[in-house]
């Protein structure tokens, strides 16, 4: 049980580090959000559940913390992404396609 917990926690911690590294390395806000959402959500989930497995009487509380992270993190990242698009931050030069103007036209129709 202890070893399984340590293994899961280790995987989670590794992904947390990768998420932070992605925040530093990737070129623009939207790509940073990609790393910031996925890697940290997954890493935090695994770390917290791993601690819950290491100490079985803590499991239910850690489950609740994981549930809160799983529910709140995508929403706040969506809000941040929408906000950076509304405040006019451009895509980086490596981007290949931008359909946002088409989307704005659709918004005008509705």
């Amino acid at each position: 049980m202890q070893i399984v917990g340590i293994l899961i926690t280790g995987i989670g911690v590794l992904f947390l580090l990768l998420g932070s590294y992605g925040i530093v390395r990737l070129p623009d806000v939207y790509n940073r959000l990609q790393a910031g959402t996925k890697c940290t959500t997954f890493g935090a989930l695994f770390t917290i559940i791993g601690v819950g497995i290491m100490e079985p009487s803590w499991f239910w509380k850690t489950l609740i913390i994981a549930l809160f992270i799983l529910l709140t993190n995508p929403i706040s990242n969506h809000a941040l992404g929408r906000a950076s698009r509304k405040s006019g931050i451009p895509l980086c030069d490596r981007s290949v396609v931008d359909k946002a103007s088409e989307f704005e036209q659709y918004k005008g129709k509705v």
Partner: protein
Amino acid sequence: MRKIISIVLLSIIAIGIILSIAEIPFGKPKMKVGKYYIDKGVKDTGATNIITSVVVNYRGFDTLGEVTVLFIAAVGVGAVLVTAEKKQKERVTEKASLVLSTGCRFLFPLILLLGAYIFVNGHLTPGGGFQGGAVIASAFLLFYMGCRWKRINKIKAQALESLGGLVFIITGLLGLIIGNYFMMNFLPKGIPNQLFSAGIIPVIYIALGCKVGSELAGVIDNMIEESE
């Protein structure tokens, strides 16, 4: 020149603070009052969280003063930014996206439940009336961010706030009537580490949670909705 002077002044202040803090013996044998609370706290009040027993029981009167300060601050904000009489100007703002508004409506009861858990379990786990009240006010703040068209009912919020204050004071005065001093613990103390224990502490924490939550929510409401 000004920058150099400010840096010198700041470093003098920093050195002073460091020198004065270095003298304090952290983690050394406890002082007399602290030792009394740690040894006798659980037996006297029935609360396993000693900080709670100090805040609400031994030093309950001071807590009443703190709550009064918060109340006066809320009243001041309300008096400066009063909106009931003025005509509300329609401000044009960007609407929240569908994900955000749906998520806020979905998460609002969960965060309220978390706040309730924190102030009900104040005598067993860290937390208490102030922390739970702040969590509840944050839930209302989240609701404003997601669903702008809804506002809290001012009259109900004020009624809840007054009710919280009344319960606090009446509990204290009942202690004065039954025993001989304000905030005497007249309810049975129960078995430590159970939810219904520690006498009047949970009652006062529930009252404090309602009061602080509705006050802070009212402050946020006044600040955000103030007409231009």
